[in-house]
């Protein structure tokens, strides 16, 4: 079945440094939908950005990600981390092969310090 892998459980950064959170996925379907959700402390997950188009950069709130079907990746990046970026980030996948259920990775906690 579909699966999403986020290799880092915790990423710690100093404010101002670039952010990169890794996400790779597995599916038998050639047209997956990929998402990044962000969850701040004591809140519920909310959508950060999403993409369905191969090799097209998607941006929102200073973050960006590009879906690369050749490498089954959808890494999240930001040029300069802010203290307010500290949160739990989930990569997620949905596609026809999975009946459009949304499968999440294990999450990466980002901690940004001054």
């Amino acid at each position, binding site marked *: 079945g579909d699966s999403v892998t986020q290799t880092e459980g915790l990423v710690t950064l100093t404010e101002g440094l670039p952010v990169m959170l890794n996400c790779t996925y597995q599916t038998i379907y050639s047209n997956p939908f990929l998402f990044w959700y962000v969850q701040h402390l004591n809140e519920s997950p909310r*959508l950060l950005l999403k993409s369905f188009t191969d090799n097209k950069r998607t941006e929102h709130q200073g973050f960006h990600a590009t879906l690369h079907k050749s490498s089954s990746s959808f890494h999240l990046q930001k040029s300069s981390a802010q203290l307010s970026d500290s949160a739990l980030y989930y990569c997620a996948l*949905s596609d*026809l092969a999975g*009946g*459009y259920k949304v499968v999440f990775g294990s*999450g990466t906690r980002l901690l940004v310090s001054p």
Partner: protein
Amino acid sequence: NAGVIQTPRHKVTGKGQEATLWCEPISGHSAVFWYRQTIVQGLEFLTYFRNQAPIDDSGMPKERFSAQMPNQSHSTLKIQSTQPQDSAVYLCASSLAGTGAETLYFGSGTRLTVL
């Protein structure tokens, strides 16, 4: 728009008791998803409904967990004979049609504690 509403916010049960969790999706949304969130496992998919019909319950522990959606305005997740390992935050989410490209909108969750 009140968003996805989940009740209760917190529930404490004794081992072996039953727990019923409620979810009211956003009005007009036809897909409802249930997830379990723990620090160790992250967001685990449990089950999902589209137009009130169960589409996929592959994440549900079959023996004690069941979910229903009797009408378009609410869904329930029932856990029988609760065990300490069921302690988690249970999140309900809804989307417009459940056709893959849509945003999931999450409720605030129900924190279940099994003593």
